[in-house]
């Protein structure tokens, strides 16, 4: 029982997450203009995907759980899309 070692996928994900963290902090200091925020969000999405796929074991699960996991994000997308549509297309009256 005592000779349990963490699976390589978990260790690998953990190291990848830390590497991505270092990367996103470094990139944040590079003057990329408006790409800075895009880069930050994309890297955050990659990190979240790694956590979901490996730590939360989604990659071993069937389509049903993927749909459940995706539903929240999908509806979040609706909120942001239709909500921001108003604020971005307002013309001063």
């Amino acid at each position, binding site marked *: 029982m005592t000779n349990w070692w963490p699976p390589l996928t978990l260790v690998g994900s953990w190291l990848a997450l830390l590497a991505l963290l270092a990367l996103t902090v470094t990139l944040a200091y590079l003057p990329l203009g408006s790409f800075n925020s895009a880069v930050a969000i994309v890297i955050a999405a990659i990190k979240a995907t790694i956590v979901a796929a490996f730590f939360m074991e989604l990659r071993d699960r069937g389509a*049903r759980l993927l749909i459940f996991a995706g539903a*929240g994000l999908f509806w979040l997308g609706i909120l942001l899309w239709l909500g921001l549509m108003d604020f971005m297309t307002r013309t001063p009256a």
Partner: protein
Amino acid sequence: MPKGRAFAPQYASVQHRDETAEIGMWVFLATEVLLFGGLLFAYFVYRHANPAAFAEAGRHTRIVIGTANTAILLTSSFFVACAVNALQADARRTCIAMLVSAMLLGLLFLGLKAAEYAGEYHEHLVPGVDFSYVAPLADGVELFFIFYFVATSIHAVHMVIGIAVLATLAVLLRRSASTRMRAALHSAALYWHFVDVVWIVLFALIYLPGRSGT
């Protein structure tokens, strides 16, 4: 009526029960996504209206603490994932050790968070309590800090709940490792990882804007 079974009568088997619990947990997490989603929406609306102020406010956050906290939380998530894996391999002591490590990291996260809050209080950056910021863009900066405090404190509440759940599980696991406990640990782990994911997103939105000086 069936008596003396390890699972409630509406289930056909232990596996049936555990799969249902996993579905329930994921539905709950979908709910949580939308809870933080409302905050994200508010954040993007105001960031769109005050881009320069949000960049400036981002520079006033403590990126060292933020980055350290992110690393801490990612590591704690790793430990929790290991705990689940260890219990599957019947390494109960390792599992408990992993849970305790994750909890300690969680407490460390909260401690750093508190230090960060204290620093912001000294800099008069707490809207509604003590906010004075004399510069152009002060209003946008205030909006940023409102979001910052609401979002991070709701996240911190989730952390406290998560730590309490992990602590309970660690204590119960010392006694036995029934199938019921495995299912409970699995659900708790999903919750902990979700709180981690929320932080990953908050980190990108709070600490990273404006670092490159634009």
